[in-house]
């Protein structure tokens, strides 16, 4: 097992990539604290991990709120005694141009995707530094390195995540903290059909567009989870400040 004796916090762990990462980390021996806003989904993920013989807790957390982030870190330390891995994964997306995006929708995406990453890292870094090291993995996006259509706030937030990753890597490398991000392409999560619906596209047409990349398909949440596992484990011990693109070749051109 590749994460034996490790403790991981996974934000947005109640569905999609976060859920897959929580289950994979637990299988690899980590004790996991799952955060999210949806209590019933969070408890369902936790229950599945416990049934499979893993250790997990669910902490209802809105990563936009500093006090809730602080509490999530405190509760993790209280339950598990340490904190080795933080996966900043909570994220939202709505398809809008700058003309269409309301100020509220802008704030929502920036605050969850980017500020939430800052807040969780701010509170997790202290205990990690005190115990001599740790790993932070941020979920950015292919659209954090190239632009996309109708995605102004999302692109801005994810581009911010890439550079926040590098800045924190520079600041905390000497304290034994590695900070990296992943940049997934289109992945089989609930976010995808939701995007199709909001764009007013039928699923078949939308999916065909997503599949138009060298590997000819969208990714699975498990494929993203394995990239996160690589960055969380000692296999990546010389990696920090990197953006790992996992997109079936979508940004190769």
């Amino acid at each position, binding site marked *: 097992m590749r994460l034996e004796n490790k403790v991981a916090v996974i934000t947005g762990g109640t569905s999609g990539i976060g859920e897959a990462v929580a289950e994979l980390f637990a299988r690899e021996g980590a004790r996991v604290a799952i955060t999210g806003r949806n209590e019933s989904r969070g408890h369902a993920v936790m229950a599945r991990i416990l049934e499979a013989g893993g250790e997990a807790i669910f902490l209802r957390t809105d990563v936009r709120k500093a006090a809730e982030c602080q509490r999530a870190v405190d509760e993790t330390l209280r339950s598990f005694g340490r904190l080795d891995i933080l996966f900043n994964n909570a994220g939202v997306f709505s398809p809008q141009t700058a003309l269409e995006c309301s100020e509220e929708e802008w704030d929502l995406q920036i605050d969850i995707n980017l500020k939430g990453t800052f807040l969780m890292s701010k509170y997790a870094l202290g205990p990690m530094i005190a115990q001599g090291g740790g790993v932070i993995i941020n979920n950015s996006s292919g659209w954090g390195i190239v632009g996309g259509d109708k995605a102004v706030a999302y692109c801005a937030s994810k581009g911010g995540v890439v550079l926040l990753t590098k800045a924190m890597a520079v600041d905390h490398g000497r304290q034994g903290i590695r900070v990296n991000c992943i940049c997934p392409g289109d992945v089989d999560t609930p976010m995808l059909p939701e995007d199709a619906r909001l764009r007013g596209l039928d699923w078949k047409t939308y999916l065909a567009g997503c599949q138009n990349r060298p590997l000819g398909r969208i990714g699975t949440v498990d494929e993203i989870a394995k990239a996160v596992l690589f960055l969380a484990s000692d*296999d990546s011990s010389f990696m920090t400040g990197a953006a790992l693109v996992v997109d079936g070749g979508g940004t*190769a051109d």
Partner: protein
Amino acid sequence: MQLAGRVSGKVALITGGASGIGRATALLFAHEGAAIALADVNADAGRRVADEITQSGGRVFFDTVDVTRAADCQRLVERAIREFGRIDILFNNAGITRRATVLDLSEEDWDRVMAVNVKSIYLLSREVIPHMQKAGGGTIINTASGWGLAGGAKAAVYCASKGAVVLLTKAMAIDHGPQNIRVNCVCPGDTDTGMLREEAQQLGEENSRFLAEAAKRPLGRVGTPEEIAQAALYLASAASSFVTGTALVVDGGGLARSL
């Protein structure tokens, strides 16, 4: 030998496998269950690596190969197919450096570096890809460099060659993705290999001073060949099944400040 290794039952062809990153990768892939076709120009060191793998129960052959020669590449691939029946993983790792500005660089050195670092990838890939296509897929990993993404001092041809490796990687990923062949590169930062010491020598710098300078990065140290090998293993294994056309930077944060 592990039964449930992460590249169990796979065949990996590794160039520049006699030392440094290539050697560490050959040992790791063999440990994780792959049969290894090992190539290098340095026959003595190459045979020693092959012996090490054999002694720990792995399957391997070593071939003395100049990867800049088409005939050598063809012969190497034919032998791998003859002995192991397939090639699942191609690790194009052979590389050299010449630390000089364009003013101080001879045309012969330019040609030599470009041939070893870049043309070899083309020569081997065109031999290996048809076999991967027939088998239904495969994965190619090229050793680029942090200096394939950002410039460095007195390294004109090295930067040119590694920049070419990054974009050759992406171009091949686009061409061969539909055939389920994934093509990625690793971009190591300064790593504790013979090449690092040779660079100090080429620059006329004292070794300890050069190494202290190389350690100036967020993690405060140079990398080990084993750490780069782990990155190559990730790209070679099914764990990276949705990853293609990517440049995986493994540099202790050296490039976090660069564009």
